[in-house]
């Protein structure tokens, strides 16, 4: 129906609608930054989709108000030019007008605050997660502890640092081309790590986030949020990724000279593949008595994380 209307409207219109459509479609397609990207990516979780929708609501409300306000201004600038013979009027107040433009913005603001509040309440709900990952920020790398999975401690722990290719090119006056750094097809300069954070698709993952030296911030745009990693404080947040893929982020709180060099890579894989991977990572997998010390090491972590969730 829409497309037939567009065709009747002529080729120019069709072309412009098509190109806008392409922009929107491509916005849905990418998960990581691409050249000439104009807008936020909708991401790969239901939360990030809703954040994207809220962002677009805010954007279009601003565009609409902007069109009205700036049109009025432009009309005033052309209609009331002295060089066109405009004579100044002398009125200087109107209670009616001022009441109108106090009340209308209130209504517009409430219409934006309502969905924002609902979304925020949903985002704050970290209950009923199937898995907990503890994230610790260090100058300048991230540490990941898989505290538990399906209510069982895993003992999996590793450090995730900038990949060697990016590191080499990023050295001062290295003379090497940042475009040459690739992870598969993706130009991954400064957005790739040696050990990505592997997560299962379709599982609610709770993160507990802290830091060991200065304040860092852990954020992946495709997941929709960032949370500060603060020494002495444990923050939490959660995600449930819908689509397998590689999602890249960076430290987003100034943390010293290595701030640009501590990226985040989340590798979301199907649940079965994740369980295989997790089993392969687990320390001392074979002997039966071995898991006991591992568990005793991991349990305080889990207990710690569980009891100190709300920040002071």
């Amino acid at each position: 129906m829409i497309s037939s209307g567009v065709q009747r409207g002529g080729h120019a219109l069709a072309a412009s609608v098509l190109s806008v459509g392409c922009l929107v479609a491509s916005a849905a397609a990418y998960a990581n930054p691409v050249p000439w990207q104009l807008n936020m990516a909708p991401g790969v979780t239901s939360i990030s989709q809703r954040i994207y929708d809220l962002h677009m609501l805010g954007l279009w409300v601003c565009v609409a108000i902007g069109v009205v306000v700036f049109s009025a201004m432009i009309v005033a600038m052309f209609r009331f030019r002295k060089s066109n013979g405009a004579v100044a009027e002398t009125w200087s107040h109107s209670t009616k007008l001022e009441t109108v433009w106090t009340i209308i913005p209130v209504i517009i603001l409430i219409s934006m605050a309502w969905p924002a509040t609902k979304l925020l309440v949903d985002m704050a709900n970290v209950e009923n997660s199937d898995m907990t990952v503890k994230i610790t920020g260090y100058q300048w790398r991230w540490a990941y502890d898989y505290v538990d999975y399906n209510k069982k401690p895993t003992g999996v722990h590793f450090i995730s640092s900038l990949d060697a290719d990016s590191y080499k090119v990023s050295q001062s006056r290295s003379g090497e081309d940042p475009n040459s750094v690739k992870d598969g097809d993706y130009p991954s300069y400064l957005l790739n790590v040696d050990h990505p954070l592997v997560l299962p698709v379709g599982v609610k993952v709770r993160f507990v986030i802290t830091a060991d030296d200065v304040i860092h911030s852990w954020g992946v745009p495709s997941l929709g949020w960032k949370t500060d990693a603060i020494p002495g404080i444990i923050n939490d947040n959660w995600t449930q990724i819908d689509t397998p893929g590689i999602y890249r982020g960076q430290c987003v709180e100034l943390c010293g000279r290595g701030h640009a060099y501590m990226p985040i890579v989340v590798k979301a894989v199907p649940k079965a593949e994740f369980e295989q991977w997790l089993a392969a990572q687990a320390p001392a997998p074979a002997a039966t008595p071995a898991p006991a010390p591992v568990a005793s090491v991991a349990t305080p972590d889990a207990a710690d994380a569980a009891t100190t969730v709300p920040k002071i």
Partner: protein
Amino acid sequence: MAHAASPAIHADVHDDHDHKPQGFLHRWLFTTNHKDIGTLYLIFSLTMFFIGGSAAMLIRAELFEPGMQLMRPEFFNQLTTMHGLIMIFGAIMPAFVGLANWMLPMMIGAPDMALPRMNNWSFWILPFAFLMLLGTFFMPGGAPQGGWTMYPPLSIEGGMNVAFMIFAIHMMGISSIMGAINIIATILNMRAPGMDLLRMPVFVWSWLITAFLLIAVMPVLAGAVTMLLTDKYFGTSFFNAAGGGDPVMYQHIFWFFGHPEVYIMILPAFGIVSEIIPTFSRKPLFGYTAMVYALASIAFLSFIVWAHHMFAVGMPLGGELFFMYATMLIAIPTGVKVFNWITTMWGGSLTFETPMLFAIAFVILFTIGGFSGVMLALVPADFQYQDTYFVVAHFHYVLVTGAAFGIMAAAYYWLPKWSGNMYSEKWGKIHFWSSAIAVNVLFFPQHFLGLAGMPRRIPDYNVAFANFNMISSIGGFWFGATQLIFVGVIVHCVYFSKNRATSQVWEGAHGLEWTLPSPAPYHSFSTPPVITSGMLAHGDVTH
């Protein structure tokens, strides 16, 4: 001097009549004259604008393309930190204090500021504070590199620069507080008979409110940085988690200062624009009373929105909601101001001299900064925007095309009154158009970078961000170079312009300052003027 050719003798005679102090040191170092101190503030501010701008040029040069070409990351962090501190405390704030010094006594019919000796002191502290701050560049370990917000623990990891930065900030704070006390004392005590509070020009109102903000929050900043100092040097643990302190507490205290500070940098610009638009629209300011109440509401709200700078620190849900709603409320009084400016133009008889061009650009571009501000207030969306270039774009629209454009508009508007000469309208317009276009090339693409996820305060970035960074850098160099025209216009106007200004200067100008000759005499209003409604820019507000 006194034995020079006859025109010079004539000038000297004129000076004698003015009781201007003789000799350079006497005139400038020991001055208690509000106009001279205003000039000192403005020259200081322009100097700092170029020093802070040079830091910005280096930042944009490093960000011109991905890879590290020019500097090490440490130095990049020093540049971003110092750029912020210099522009805020050295360029924007002193410029507004300079404008207040020059214009407030003339606008309320007073002979000078209420506390002239303190006025001298509050200025002369500043050059020393900034010598000390800039001196850190040459110290072992370089300048501070923890960002202008100085979040611990990072900020106190620095070397000796920490102590110097904190002492410099204390001095700037003392200077600001003294300036604010002086402004309040002047406005409340020295108005000419008939200049009732609700008949004051809006610029005077904006400064009265700003001065109260300064007195309220500069001590808070002083407290925050003092705690940083004792944490670093005296073993306290205010912000050190290992000693039972809380790094987030610093952010709460800092932003309790920091958000009113944002309005300290914009309210006087609101005042300036509220003077300029009626003049060049030849029509009284629309809704004078509402404009004053809007200023007061914005000032009040500025105290209850601080944590919107910290949505990602992990606040409880109730806190996030409160600060979101409070922040969104600011859009209402700000909207009233924008609508009233446009309605002032509506039905007027508009001409577009340089001050008016800057004022109109201010309204449009500040509004764009306000739009991104409303978007940033939506907490879930802020989780995406926080600490990305979207924020950088937002606050540069508010502070460059807001505060700085307001200051430039004021400079063009009052320069004929200060110097007695008209500036070159042609070059003023060239400066305006070049600035207005360049600043958008510079900052608009940063919205896209932020939405694509580029964090702020990074010296190097992924190749996906390369295109818009290059465009932004080109806009940056263009904007920076354009400001040399500004200096040229000012120097030409003051020293070389042959085009004498009348006392009213602008056809539609109203207000006491325009009843004085141009240049304004060294001592003005030694006897209080008689005020009539027609003299005021906003007409008769008593209706």
